[in-house]
């Protein structure tokens, strides 16, 4: 009973800005550190140790960047949709801030997925781009991210901006599968070349580095999300007492009391 209690207490604490700020700040070095280790291990493995593909050749190594990025682009949007729902129904400010802070990360992953996908497609299947369901949906997803970020930036009042963005994200998440299947249907009428990783199972020697980079991507998302959420809290709550205490404490502790810089490879 007691452990159940403290778990609930922990979640409640996360909903309060000063506690989130502190807890996230303590977790950040671990998240970045773990990300760095896994990213280096996974990418080195995929780049130099894993085998080339029988059919595709060396270009399959792009998979270790492209696939985690694509997974994250969709996962983050789904998480944002969940947060949007909670934000609209329960109006929890911390959830709103997490949602807004997730958007740029999701957009970045989508962009990486699109660019790496195009660079994978050219040497492997002969073309940078094709309007099949998968790639088109990924492009539309980028537009959805940009639209949500643009809408939020255009509204001055933070709570109102969050509500508007939540609504847009929910509309988008419903639309995304519809878009995917309508483009798929459209394509079956016109039968162009279909690009993408085929449904065949991946060889274990390629699966392990892929899983490692996928987990690294999730850690990157969490670390980046916490950094951005903390920044937003600092800006929005700058007149509040807890921020002043925090800034003063940092000043006393020394000039460079920041979370460690990005562990990006």
């Amino acid at each position, binding site marked *: 009973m007691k452990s159940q209690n403290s778990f609930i207490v922990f979640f409640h604490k996360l909903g309060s800005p000063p506690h989130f700020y502190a807890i996230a700040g303590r977790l950040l070095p671990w998240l970045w550190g773990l990300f760095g280790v896994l990213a280096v291990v996974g990418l080195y493995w995929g780049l130099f140790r894993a085998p080339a593909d029988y059919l595709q050749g*060396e270009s399959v190594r792009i998979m270790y960047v492209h696939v985690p990025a694509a997974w994250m682009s969709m996962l983050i949007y789904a998480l944002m949709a969940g947060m949007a729902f909670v934000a609209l129904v329960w109006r929890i400010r911390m959830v709103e801030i997490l949602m807004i802070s997730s958007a740029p990360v999701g957009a970045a992953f989508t962009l*990486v997925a699109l660019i790496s996908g195009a660079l994978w497609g050219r040497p492997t299947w*002969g073309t940078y781009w094709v309007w099949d369901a998968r790639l088109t949906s990924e492009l539309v997803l980028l537009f959805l991210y940009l639209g949500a970020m643009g809408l939020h930036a255009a509204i001055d009042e933070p709570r109102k901006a969050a509500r508007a963005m939540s609504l847009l994200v929910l509309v988008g998440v419903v639309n995304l599968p519809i878009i995917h299947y309508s483009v798929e249907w459209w394509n079956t009428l016109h039968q162009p070349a279909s690009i993408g990783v085929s449904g065949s199972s991946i060889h274990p020697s390629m699966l392990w580095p892929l899983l490692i980079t996928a987990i690294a991507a999730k850690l990157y998302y969490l670390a980046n999300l916490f950094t951005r959420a903390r920044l937003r809290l600092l800006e929005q709550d700058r007149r509040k007492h807890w921020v002043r205490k925090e800034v003063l404490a940092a000043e006393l502790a020394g000039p460079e009391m*920041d979370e460690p810089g990005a562990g990006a490879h």
Partner: protein
Amino acid sequence: MFDPMTFDHGTFIIAAYAAAAVILAWCALAPVLRARKVRAHLQRVLSVERSGGER
């Protein structure tokens, strides 16, 4: 215009990894740098207040 088909796979791999690195590094660093600016600004504001509010 050069024909990208003559590039070998290695060029594409490097280009893809490089693009990912640049985008993700920028995405990670931007809030860190901005947080530093915000904190420095707040420290200045607070020190002004503590010294009596006269600038």
